[in-house]
């Protein structure tokens, strides 16, 4: 018995001695992350010392296996990409042999066969348990119920889907469940497929949780050595996390590219701890997601906006041959009148286009009505500024691609879709676009017009679903 105790003590001392030698800032940064060995914010010697003392584990960047047919199959250990066409093999001057790298997550620093990834391999940091929820608003009974159900799912560790119409106050529903997780010292992530959504969420969450360490991660955000307890991140940024979170909330779960990309889905799963639930919040869940959650988790549905007013029903208006008109340098009359009406009534507006080229041709024509009208798209350099200018009422309206279809709130905004028959405007996209209208209590309605060159099933389906939701029905 004494001998055993001695053994235990010896091991404990050994562990303690090891544990004493690490740098807490390295732990705080690396815990839950999977990072390039040579590109950390710390000196290379520090990282090497931690690898030596086994506080940090190294993992090869690319795992290559052989299939039964003797074909090589690569897996990226960072983004877990398995699409073989997204790998390139070349003669590497560093490892002097054929070396494969992943093109999928290239922009975060190349991961190749001879690149080493590092993960934290020792005790996890302990997160604070003192947090205040400063949000003063009151939830509607439906919101409150969804919020309670979500907390319940967190305790049960099962996935939860909040299926709530646009403008029903989805973010507010999350506050209480997140607060409870934070109080328990859990690490939480809110992920969204688009930067715009993260940028809109960040100030709201910072205001709601003033004492919590919050970090927003997106392409172009400054990297720090912080290790916040509450992380807001674009789904792409989750490639760099591994077994980090006790719960992940995926906001606007159906937005491109999340549903489109299996790899991103796996990245979300990988970023969560193995037992941790991944929740979804969206107004337009795909059938696949609905079926999945029905089997494994819980769904809360909210079909009323927080102010109780119905969703705006889309109005069809034909705009025959709009492409030709715009290419000839003429703004179609109906579109012209609609815009002039908005300008006269000083109502902010968004006009959605399916194609950047066409939108930019139209931009010149719109500028003849008002020079302050701008066009924005995903890679537009001033995208953030233009959207902010619309919020500040410095510009009367914007032309946009589907990037602004979700997550943004502009009081009294009026919305038109040019070319609603285009494939990119599927049911989900149209419902989301319509969801921009009438979000504020002061202006609970507004015009939502679909200018089209023919009516599609997607348009009819979207209209049908909105009417059904307004009647109080639960969409299937």
């Amino acid at each position, binding site marked *: 018995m004494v001998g055993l105790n001695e053994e235990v003590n010896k091991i404990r001392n050994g562990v303690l001695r090891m544990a004493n030698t690490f740098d807490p800032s390295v732990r705080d940064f690396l815990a839950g992350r999977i990072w390039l060995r040579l590109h950390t914010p710390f000196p290379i010697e520090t990282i090497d010392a931690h690898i030596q003392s086994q506080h940090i584990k190294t993992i090869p960047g690319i795992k290559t296996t052989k299939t039964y047919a003797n074909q090589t199959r690569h897996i990226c250990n960072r983004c877990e990409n398995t699409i073989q*066409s997204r790998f*390139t093999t*070349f*003669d*590497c*001057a*560093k490892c002097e042999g054929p*070396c494969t*790298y992943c*093109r999928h997550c*290239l*922009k975060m*620093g*190349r991961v*190749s066969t*001879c690149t080493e990834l590092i993960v934290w391999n020792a005790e996890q940091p302990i997160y604070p348990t003192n947090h205040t929820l400063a949000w003063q608003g009151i939830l509607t009974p439906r919101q409150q119920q969804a919020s309670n159900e979500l907390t319940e799912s967190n305790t049960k560790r099962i996935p939860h889907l909040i299926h709530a119409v646009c403008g029903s106050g989805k973010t507010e529903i999350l506050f209480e469940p997140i607060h409870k997780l934070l109080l328990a010292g859990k690490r939480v992530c809110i992920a969204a497929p688009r930067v715009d959504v993260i940028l809109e969420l960040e100030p709201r969450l910072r205001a709601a949780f003033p004492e919590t360490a919050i970090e927003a991660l997106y392409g172009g955000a400054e990297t720090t050595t912080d290790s916040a307890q509450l992380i807001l991140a674009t789904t792409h940024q989750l490639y760099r996390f591994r077994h980090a979170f006790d719960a992940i909330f995926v906001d606007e779960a159906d937005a491109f590219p999340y549903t489109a990309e299996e790899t991103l889905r796996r990245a979300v799963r990988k970023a969560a701890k193995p037992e941790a639930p991944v929740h979804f919040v969206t107004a337009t869940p795909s059938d696949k997601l609905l079926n999945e959650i029905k089997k494994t988790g819980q769904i809360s549905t909210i079909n009323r906006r927080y102010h109780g007013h119905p969703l705006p029903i889309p109005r069809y208006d034909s705009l025959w041959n709009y492409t030709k008109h715009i290419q000839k340098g003429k703004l179609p009359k109906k579109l012209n009148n609609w815009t002039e009406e908005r300008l006269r009534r000083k109502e902010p507006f968004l006009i959605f286009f399916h194609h950047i080229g066409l939108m930019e041709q139209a931009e010149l024509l719109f500028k003849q009505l008002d020079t302050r009208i701008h066009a924005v798209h995903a890679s537009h350099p001033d995208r953030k500024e233009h959207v902010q200018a619309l919020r500040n009422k410095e510009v009367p309206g914007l032309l946009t691609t589907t990037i602004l279809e979700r997550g943004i709130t502009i009081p009294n905004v009026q919305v038109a879709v040019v070319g609603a028959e285009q494939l990119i405007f599927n049911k989900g996209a149209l419902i989301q676009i319509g969801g921009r209208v009438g979000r504020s209590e002061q202006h609970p309605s507004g015009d939502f017009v679909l200018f089209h060159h023919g009516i599609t099933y997607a348009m009819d389906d979207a209209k049908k679903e909105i009417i059904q939701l307004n009647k109080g029905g639960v969409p299937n």
Partner: protein
Amino acid sequence: MNDCLLCEQKIASVPSWKALLALEKQTAICQDCSKKFQRADIKEEDKLLDQVTSLYTYNEAMREYLHQFKFLQDVALASVFANELRTLLKGDPTIVPIPMHPEKRIERTFAPVDELLKSARLPFTHLLEKTGMEAMGEKSKEQRLAVKPLFRLKPGTSVQPSTYILLDDIYTTGTTLRHAATVLKEAGATRVEAVTLIRAER
């Protein structure tokens, strides 16, 4: 059908007889992306270089391309200009790529100019080697003109009294190429031409 290497979109193929008979060349990038590169097509003579050909201007698209190719180390992008380099360079004269310092090459894991040629399936010979570690891009014009010889002949190689074509990615002041040409001419080359993918504004 493959994806565009730059924008990751599917490359829309236009149905044609050529495509049906598999005579059409596979392109690595889509029409939209290739339109963003601006042709320069400069052909000029110089005291030391018998002919300098540059294909593209250094515009925003090209800056991004070089960034992804050289600094993000996306070797796959070597194939973007493969068809074009092949059409321009296939033939007799020996192609001599501007070399990288061996240490720099290991650091970057590949030599971009070599990869351009490999991807274009063009044979090439390394006749030169770098004397120092310095990069031209970090110097001012005065500094560039004052530097000691940048290259020397690679030990164990010989230069014939014939034509050589130097290949480099970018031409800014031409100092690099003139240094290389000087070495080759002093070793007995009769004619030294140069081809660069990009011509930058001075």
